[in-house]
């Protein structure tokens, strides 16, 4: 190679071919480029806080009764300057791919707009991602988690989101491929349970209802449950499943007492396929392995949270 470097010190005045551009048109073009670059930089700075929020709207929010609430919420989000990109969920939306893609574009906060089902649908796939989750509960039905998290319903929830009190919450990992936040429930089965790989619990010949509670109590004997979603462990509860009248008369009510064990790792095994209900989603499994992920989920909560 021969030394054909341009002799000028400032490369700004050097064209692509290496020759010096001196014409007024070239200077004007450079000036325009500089102005445009500066304008882009400024708009990026202004856009960053807006783009760091991603709002995931449930499909039911398109219905008439919820449109006005959503409209008010969007206005209030504007007031608090926490508006962001809105994505309306459909049946085929894969929440994990969606959120991961938006994270690559700078999203740091994912706000789920809907009800318990919406929250479960998103978090069962995305709980391990490094973003802060917010929740705007809309409507009166299926919004029990909002009460636990201390988030008021509808437009008042925006104030909690804007206050941005973030708590780290435990969640469960089921069979190393999905997550649950509220509870897991096995309706009635003959199972063997291994807690923390150190002791096994055999409920005998009877069928047992099994539940693991984190944020919501499972659907039996709910007044006995302890909800501590930040202690790094979960509790497994089990009690004999409902029996026939004759069996109840013979065995009495004594054996209906709920057993409870705290754990960090749990393995439920059965000879037969068992039905597992986790965060509203029903699956059929031969074995269920649950691992507690301690305080990994960052969630915006209200002052009135119940934990």
């Amino acid at each position: 190679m021969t030394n054909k470097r341009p002799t000028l010190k400032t490369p700004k005045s050097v064209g692509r071919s290496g020759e010096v551009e001196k014409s007024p048109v070239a200077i004007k073009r450079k000036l325009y480029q500089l102005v445009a670059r500066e304008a882009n930089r400024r708009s990026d700075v202004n856009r960053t806080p807006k783009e760091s929020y991603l709002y995931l709207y449930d499909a039911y929010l398109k219905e008439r009764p919820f449109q006005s609430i959503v409209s008010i919420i969007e206005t209030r989000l504007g007031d608090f300057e926490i508006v962001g990109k809105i994505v309306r969920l459909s049946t085929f939306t894969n929440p994990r791919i969606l959120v991961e893609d938006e994270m690559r574009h700078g999203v740091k906060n994912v706000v789920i707009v809907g009800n318990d089902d919406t929250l479960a649908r998103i978090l069962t796939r995305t709980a391990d991602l490094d973003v802060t989750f917010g929740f705007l509960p809309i409507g009166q039905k299926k919004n029990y988690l909002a009460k636990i998290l201390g988030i008021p319903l509808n437009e008042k929830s925006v104030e909690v989101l804007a206050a941005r009190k973030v708590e780290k919450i435990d969640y469960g990992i089921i069979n190393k491929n999905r997550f649950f936040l509220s509870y897991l429930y096995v309706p009635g089965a003959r199972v063997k349970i291994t807690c923390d790989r150190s002791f096994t619990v055999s409920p005998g010949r009877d069928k047992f209802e099994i539940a693991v509670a984190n944020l919501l109590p499972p659907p039996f004997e709910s007044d006995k449950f302890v909800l501590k979603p930040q202690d790094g462990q979960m509790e497994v509860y089990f009690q004999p499943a409902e029996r026939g009248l004759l069996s109840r008369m013979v065995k009495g009510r004594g054996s209906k007492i709920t057993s409870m064990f705290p754990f960090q790792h749990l393995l439920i095994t059965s000879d037969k396929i068992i039905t597992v209900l986790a965060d509203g989603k029903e699956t059929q499994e031969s074995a269920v392995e649950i691992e507690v992920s301690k305080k990994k989920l960052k969630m915006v909560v209200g002052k009135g949270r119940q934990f």
Partner: protein
Amino acid sequence: MSDKKTLPGGDEVETIVGPSVKVEGEFVSEGNIVIEGQVSGTVKTAKHLRVEEGAKINANVGAESALVSGEVHGNMKINSTLEMTPTAKIYGDVETKTIIVAAGAILHGRCLMDESEKGRKVKGKNEGYDEQTPNS
């Protein structure tokens, strides 16, 4: 939760073994334990242990305090108080600081009571029951 079971000390129950449940293995807990079913292996807790009437333990037991109404086959090492109700049956050696035995309770085994804190700690380190097998 208001309806949770509470122990005499007022602490909340952390682990409950129900009447029709059988536990096998090293059963260790940091909180209170209530046993109404069957346990075999090892039972250890840093807090209170309650063995209800009808419960059966085939294990060496270690706890801060204990109230026994059921059956224990194994050695018991209780740091503070062991209370045996009229239905209690213990087949094994007992080491504790204070023991309360109700009329009708059965204790088959040696009973060692060392009131000195230092002596108890040294024995706890060197002569603990943990490595022994039940009914040894």
